[in-house]
C-alpha cells in the first residue's frame, strides 16, 4: 500500500520536474515546480516526517514560490517564451547531462544508499516535531546557527546592495 | 508619525494601541445594525410608493377647465418649443364646445422615448393646457406604448393637484393585462425617514 503511494507520488514528482524544464512558458514552469514540491512533501509524509512535509509546503510552496511567481509575473511573456535559452550550448549540455545520468546510475547501482536507521524508533517519531527541535538545538546547534548567520548575512547584503544603488540615484 | 509635534504624545499612542478609533466606528455601525428604526428603505413596489412634490416633472397632462372643456387650442407652440421634437400636434376645427376655442387638437401625442422632461412645453403653453404631472412609472415593453396620445393624457391624475406630495404612501402591487402597476393609497402617508 505504502509502496503504491510512493510510486504514485514519485512518478508525479518526476513527470512534473521534467515539465518544469521542458515547458516554454515561465509561469507554467513555476506551476509545475509547485506540483513537484507538493509531491515531495507527500513523500516526506510517507517517510513519517510530517513536520518536514509541512515545512516543505509552508516554506517552499507557500513562500518561496510566491516570491518566484511575483518575479515571473512581471516578465514580458511574449519575449520570454520565444527566447532560446541555451544559446547554442545544447550539444555540450546534452552530453554533460547524459554523463551525469550515467554517473548517477553507477552510484545508485554500486553504492550503498541504505542509511543506518537512527536512534529513534517508531514510537519516538510520533512526536516528530519535538525530536527535530531537540536535535536541532542540541546536537546540531552549530550547523544550525551557522546557517542562520549565513542567511542573516545574505539578508543584510541584499538590503545593502539595494540601498547603495538607491543612494547613487538620489546623488545624481 | 509624531515628528511634527516635536514631542511624543503618550495619549495618542495609547489610543492607537487600544484601537479606540476602530472601536468608535464599530460601535456606530453596530448601532445601525441592531436598530430596525434606522432603516430608510422605501419598500417601493410591494408596500409603499413615493408621492412626488408638485414641482416634479413626470408624464405630461392635458388639462380642462372647471366645466370640462379642453384648454388646449392646438397652437403648436409646445411642439415648436420642444428641444427634442417629441410633441406632435395636428389641429382641427371644432365648434361643438369641446375646447375653449374653435380650434382644438385632433392629435396631440408625445414620444416619451425622446422626451427629456425639460418643461419647455409647459412654459410655452399660452393656456396652461400642458403640464408635466407626477406620474413616473413609465417603463413598458415596447416602443409603441411609450407614445402617449391625447385621450390618455386628458384622463384625471391619480394624484390630485391639491396634494402637495413629498410623502410615502401605502401602496400595493397590482398585475393587470397590460403589465404591473403600483396603486397608492393616498389616505395613508408618512414622511420619508432621512
Amino acid at each position: 500500500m505504502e509502496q503504491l503511494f510512493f510510486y504514485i507520488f514519485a512518478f508525479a514528482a518526476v513527470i512534473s520536474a521534467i515539465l518544469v524544464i521542458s515547458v516554454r512558458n515561465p509561469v507554467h514552469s513555476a506551476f509545475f515546480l509547485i506540483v513537484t514540491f507538493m509531491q515531495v512533501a507527500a513523500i516526506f509524509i510517507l517517510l513519517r516526517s510530517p513536520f518536514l512535509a509541512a515545512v516543505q509546503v509552508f516554506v517552499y510552496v507557500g513562500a518561496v514560490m510566491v516570491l518566484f511567481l511575483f518575479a515571473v509575473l512581471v516578465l514580458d511573456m511574449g519575449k520570454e517564451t520565444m527566447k532560446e535559452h541555451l544559446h547554442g550550448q545544447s550539444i555540450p549540455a546534452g552530453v554533460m547531462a547524459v554523463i551525469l545520468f550515467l554517473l548517477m546510475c553507477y552510484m545508485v547501482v554500486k553504492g550503498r544508499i541504505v542509511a543506518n536507521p537512527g536512534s529513534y524508533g517508531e514510537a519516538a517519531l510520533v512526536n516528530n516535531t519535538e525530536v527535530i527541535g531537540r536535535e536541532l538545538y542540541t546536537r546540531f546547534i552549530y550547523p544550525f546557527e551557522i546557517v542562520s548567520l549565513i542567511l542573516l548575512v545574505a539578508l543584510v547584503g541584499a538590503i545593502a546592495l539595494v540601498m547603495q544603488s538607491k543612494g547613487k540615484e538620489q546623488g545624481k | 508619525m509624531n515628528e511634527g509635534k516635536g514631542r511624543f504624545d503618550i495619549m495618542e499612542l495609547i489610543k492607537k494601541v487600544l484601537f479606540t478609533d476602530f472601536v468608535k466606528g464599530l460601535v456606530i455601525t453596530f448601532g445601525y445594525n441592531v436598530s430596525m428604526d434606522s432603516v430608510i428603505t422605501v419598500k417601493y413596489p410591494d408596500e409603499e410608493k413615493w408621492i412626488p412634490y408638485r414641482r416634479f416633472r413626470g408624464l405630461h397632462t392635458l388639462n380642462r377647465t372647471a366645466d370640462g372643456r379642453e384648454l388646449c387650442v392646438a397652437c403648436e407652440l409646445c411642439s415648436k418649443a420642444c428641444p427634442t421634437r417629441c410633441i406632435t400636434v395636428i389641429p382641427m376645427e371644432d365648434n361643438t364646445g369641446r375646447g375653449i376655442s374653435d380650434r382644438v387638437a385632433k392629435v396631440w401625442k408625445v414620444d416619451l422615448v425622446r422626451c427629456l422632461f425639460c418643461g419647455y412645453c409647459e412654459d410655452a403653453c399660452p393656456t396652461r393646457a400642458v403640464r408635466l404631472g407626477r406620474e413616473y412609472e413609465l417603463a413598458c415593453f415596447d416602443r409603441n406604448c411609450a407614445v402617449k396620445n391625447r385621450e390618455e393624457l386628458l384622463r384625471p391624475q391619480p394624484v390630485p393637484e391639491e396634494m402637495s406630495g413629498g410623502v410615502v404612501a401605502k401602496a400595493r402591487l397590482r398585475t393587470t393585462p397590460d403589465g404591473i402597476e403600483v396603486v397608492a393609497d393616498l389616505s395613508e402617508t408618512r414622511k420619508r425617514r432621512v
Partner: protein
Amino acid sequence: MPDTATILTVIAIVVKVVIATMVIFSLPLPLTWIERKVAGHIQVRLGPWRVGPHGLLQPVADTIKLLFKEDIVPAKADKFLFWLAPLMAMVPAFAVFAAIPIGDTVMVPIINQEIALYIADMNVGILYILAIGGLGIYGIILGGWASNSKYALLGGLRSSAQMISYEIAISFAAIGVVMMSNSLSLVEIVRSQNHGIFSWNFFYLPVGPVWFAIFFIGSLAEINRIPFDLPEDEGTLSSGYITEYSGMKFSFFMLAEYVAMVSVSILAVIMFFGGWNSPFPFTIGLPSILADLLALIWFFGKVCFFIYLFMWLRFTLPRYRYDHLMVIGWKILIPLSLVTLLVTGFMRIIG
C-alpha cells in the same frame, strides 16, 4: 484481512469527510445572505428582501444565476491555468478542514461509540493549516495572470506581496500560541485552555491580546477582506483577480473566500478563545451528552461571533492604501511579533 475496528475507523473517517465537505460546500449560502443583510442594516437599508421572506431564498437565486451564466474565457487567456485557478483557490480552503477540530471526542449514546469531532488530529496541525491555507493564494496569482488582463494581473501581484508580508506575522502568532499551549496539535491547544476564561490564550497576559491582534490583523489580510482587500479593490482594479471570471468559476473564488473566512474564525476561536470550552472554570454535573452539546454550542457561538466580526469590520472600515498595508505588515506587525515572542519565551521560562 483487516479487522472490524479498522473498517469502522475507515468508515467513520469517510463519513466525516463527506459530511464536512457537504457542510462546507453549502456554507456560502447562508453566509452570503447574512453578509448582505449585515451590509444592508449597517448602511441603514434592508438588504435582500424580495426573494422569499426577508430575502431568504436570495442565495438560491444567486446560485441558479451563477450556474446558468455564460462561462466567458478571454480570447488571449492562458486556458489551462485560467481553468485551474478557481480549483487551486478552492481545494486548499477545503483541505484545511481536514485538521480543524470542532469538538473533542464524544460518546454517542445510541451506537455506544466514541466519535471524534475532527477528521485528523495531526501532531503538526497548526503548521498544516498554515501551510495548506497559504496555498489558496496560487488560485489568485495564477488566475490573475492567466486572465491576460492588467487589472487581474495587478490584483494577483498585490495579493502575492500582501500574502508574503502577512504570512510571516501570522506564523509568529502561531508560534506564540504553540509556546503558550505547548503543542502543535489543535486538539491539544484547546485542551490546554479548559480551566475557564482566564486559561484562554487570549488572557495569557500580557502577551495574549497582542498575539491575538497580530493574528487577527494578519488573517484579515490573508483572506483578502476589507480593510485589506487590495487584490480585488473595486475602486482601482474593477475586481482585481476575478475581473475576467464569470459563472461557476467566479463562484468558486467566492466559495474559497467564504470558506477561508470560516476557517480563520474557527482558528481564532481554537487558538485564543478556548475552542469548545466554556468560559466558566467549574463544570456542572450534566450528563455527558448534554455537556457535549453545550460544548458544541459554545464553539459555534464563538465562531459565529467572529464571522459576524469579519462582516462588521468589512462594512465599517475603509480600505487601506497599498503602501500603508506594507508599512503595517513589515514595520509594525513583524517587529511587534518578534518582541512579543521574546516576552512569551521569558514568561514560559519564569512561569
